[in-house]
């Protein structure tokens, strides 16, 4: 491995000097910032119609779409994580039947596009009834929630499975040798650690879920992209509604990654606010803060 003296004396040539590479990175990053920032300022100052942007008609329609997306995201998020835990547990089951079924589920929902799944649910399922006899009116939103849940439960399931297999075998063995049953050992020892391992992957997937709601425009859910497309085709002005779209999606995804970061911090070993931190402080003295 390269040592300090190696890099300072430049045995790798000038290209390999730490300081040179660092400067190069800074120049590239700054150039990128100037280019993108300049383009952004130019677009915002020449392309965006601010009267239209602030007009209550458009703002109201985007607000309505935003609330609908938020509702769909919250429900499908909760459902897909709960269902995904079951899928993950199924994947590590010692029963061949459960394991295979869970594997088949994951293969299908990860292996076909979400758009296909939405079409099956929204266009296909109602056709099992006679023309006009399908009992559920306004099927688009329920179909969307079912599709997003089934699809993302597969990804969450795989994240949970990965989290569980990343917990060292010794944890399970130790718990079993203390007389715990397999289920109890899983619940008390393995899953809490697996959850921490899987959290980043699950959070990542849930952010993708938010962005996947943009596909719902093709099954006539009046979500954010639909409002954009409607305003763009009426006003023939793409940039103004695009600003709204960008801000609204980032509002959801950025607060979501904050939430995931918070959860990760909480479940971090060793840190003051993490589980071990709280435990060790709790045992070391009564005057420890309560995190």
């Amino acid at each position, binding site marked *: 491995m390269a040592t300090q003296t190696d890099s300072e004396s430049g045995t790798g040539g000038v290209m390999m000097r730490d300081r040179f590479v660092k400067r190069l990175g800074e120049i590239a990053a700054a150039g990128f910032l100037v280019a993108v920032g300049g383009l952004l300022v130019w677009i915002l100052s020449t392309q965006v119609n601010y009267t239209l942007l602030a007009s209550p008609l458009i703002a109201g329609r985007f607000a309505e779409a935003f609330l609908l997306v938020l509702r769909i995201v919250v429900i499908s998020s909760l459902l897909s994580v709960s269902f995904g835990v079951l899928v993950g547990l199924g994947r590590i089951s010692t029963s061949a039947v459960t394991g295979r079924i869970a594997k088949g589920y994951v293969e299908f929902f990860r292996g076909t596009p979400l758009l296909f799944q939405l079409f099956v649910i929204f266009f296909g399922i*109602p056709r099992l009834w006679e023309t006009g006899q399908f009992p559920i009116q306004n099927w688009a939103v329920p179909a969307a929630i079912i599709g997003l849940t089934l699809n993302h439960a597969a990804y969450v399931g795989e994240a949970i499975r990965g989290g569980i297999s990343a917990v060292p075998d010794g944890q399970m063995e130790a718990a079993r040798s203390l007389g715990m049953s397999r289920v109890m050992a899983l619940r008390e020892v393995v899953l809490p650690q697996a959850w921490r391992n899987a959290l980043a992957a699950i959070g990542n997937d849930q952010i993708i879920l938010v962005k996947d709601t943009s596909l719902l425009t093709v099954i006539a859910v009046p979500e954010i992209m639909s409002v954009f497309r*409607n305003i763009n085709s009426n006003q023939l002005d793409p940039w103004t509604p695009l600003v709204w779209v960008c801000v609204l999606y980032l509002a959801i995804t950025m607060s979501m990654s904050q939430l995931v970061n918070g959860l990760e911090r909480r479940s971090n070993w060793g840190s003051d606010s993490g589980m071990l931190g709280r435990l060790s402080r709790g045992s070391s003295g009564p005057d420890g803060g309560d995190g």
Partner: protein
Amino acid sequence: MARERTPNRRQYLTALGVGGAVTLAGCMGGNGGGNGDNGNGDGNGNGGDSGNGNGESETIVIGSDIPYEPFEYRNEAGELLGFDVEIAEAVFGEQLGLEYEFQQTGFDGIIASLNNANFRVIMSAMTINETRAERVDFSDPYFTAYQTVLVLESDDITERSDLQGMTVGVQRGTTGEAAAEDLQSDFDGDLEIQSYDQITGAFDALLNNQVSAVINDNTVSAEFAAETDGVVFLEGDGVAADREDAPDYLTLTIEEYGIAFRQADDEFREEVNGALAAIREDGTYDEIYDEYFGA
């Protein structure tokens, strides 16, 4: 070991980079080749040999939202058929002797796409209206259409006012959507509109009990109603009641279709207008019209 591996990894990365560049170049070349093939295929299929004779002229790319039966759609074999397709053959192929090809695109972004030079003209059963005319120039009208309402026979919707409080399906960005919005304001907002990407989605929604009615161009809706049991036009006297060629069901608006051009394309637009006049004169237009809409 580790020392021997390092160059291997570097070689691997270099190879990957070179391979990627070659693939990318191959894709771009492939695209060009593919387009050329399409052009030839269209020319042959539509008897555009005269266009090939002209050789040097560029292929006219026509943007169109397919399927929109009977104006532009593909049969089971994937052949492109329809009123617009045959008019295009008569105008661009026979009259102007040009090579042309249809390019599929979504309707709601079709005008932006034309202005971004993704194609030369739009032929997509497109109604001439003022908002659109601000961004594009239209040819002389080549078809008259009416916005009409499709409902299920089994439902209790028998007149225009029955639509109040209902949900209607439309295609996004169409004049059907605009007619639905007008109806919505007539009903003081008491009408829900669901916009689908393609008209087939709205038709599906009607059959699946998601919408009570579909508002769309009469000829396209008529095709669907004829093919599907239990789907009928909403009756009533509409805006077109006093026109002699008007359909005998409720009409919400009267519209005319035009071919759309970029605003800087006046010369070509004049040529096409001349060709449109010529096919009306020599009977080609009537022939095509009767083929698709004749009694």
